[in-house]
């Protein structure tokens, strides 16, 4: 079985974010969800010196620089909206699986924006992944 490089990278993401999920449970035992998000950004900032981007970062196209930084804005706004949903009476057992469905947006938009397609078998894999995410977050 040949494991494609993207799946190896994804495995690192899975493990790192999986541990984050656990630590998030622990951090919100001591501080509020909003404070947790603020300290999360402090953690991001601690990584900045090690990313070694230098001045070269400004030479990328303006559009891609915009997409990259806007992705950060949207990620943090999404987390904020999640906290707001929980605060305004949403049950975690409903809100968590509901918000875990964000890949659907990507899957629906990708054929139009990036002109990519998937095979039928890969489609089955995507459906299994979405079902798994909902069941695991319930």
């Amino acid at each position, binding site marked *: 079985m040949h494991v494609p490089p993207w799946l190896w990278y994804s495995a690192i993401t899975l493990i*790192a*974010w*999986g541990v984050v999920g656990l630590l998030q449970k*622990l951090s919100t035992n001591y501080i509020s969800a909003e404070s947790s998000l603020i300290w999360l950004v402090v953690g*991001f900032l601690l990584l*900045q010196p090690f990313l070694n981007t230098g001045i070269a*970062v400004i030479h*990328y196209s303006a559009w891609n620089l915009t997409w990259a930084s806007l992705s950060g804005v949207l990620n*943090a706004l999404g987390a904020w909206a999640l906290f707001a949903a929980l605060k305004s009476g949403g049950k975690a057992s409903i809100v968590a699986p509901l918000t875990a469905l964000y890949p659907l947006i990507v*899957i629906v938009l990708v054929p139009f924006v990036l002109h990519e397609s998937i095979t039928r078998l890969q489609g089955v894999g995507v459906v299994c992944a979405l079902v798994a995410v909902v069941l695991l977050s319930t």
Partner: protein
Amino acid sequence: MKSIDKCRALWFWYSMACVVCWGGWALLSKLGSREIPPNAMQFLFTIGTIPVAIALLIARRFRLEKSPKGISYGVLNGVLSGVGGLALFAAYHTNSNTSLITAATALYPMVTVLLAVVILRERFRPIQALGLIFAAIAIVIFSL
């Protein structure tokens, strides 16, 4: 009764806002990653998160809880999220299928569930076991 319905609608719309924001985040991450390497993507991503953190700080009137444990977990979350983000940007940068990468990386709750059972001694529920089976099928299909 009406106000309860309104509240219900509010949490639902906040959840939808979250889905749209995170969907947008994943899509824009891919768009940027076509040209920009993972380290620069993470650098720029972090710059994007700063205004939201500042807005939250202002909303909280700069009052944060002083729990050393909570703060340590929070900062560690940021470092690990960043490492996970770097790997995600690297996956997008390989020019492989965006839908597959996004669906595969969204499976991270399976690691959380396993760790919560092993470390926090949380109860392993049948619905989660079913979730793990679906996750395993998805990963096997993605690796074909």
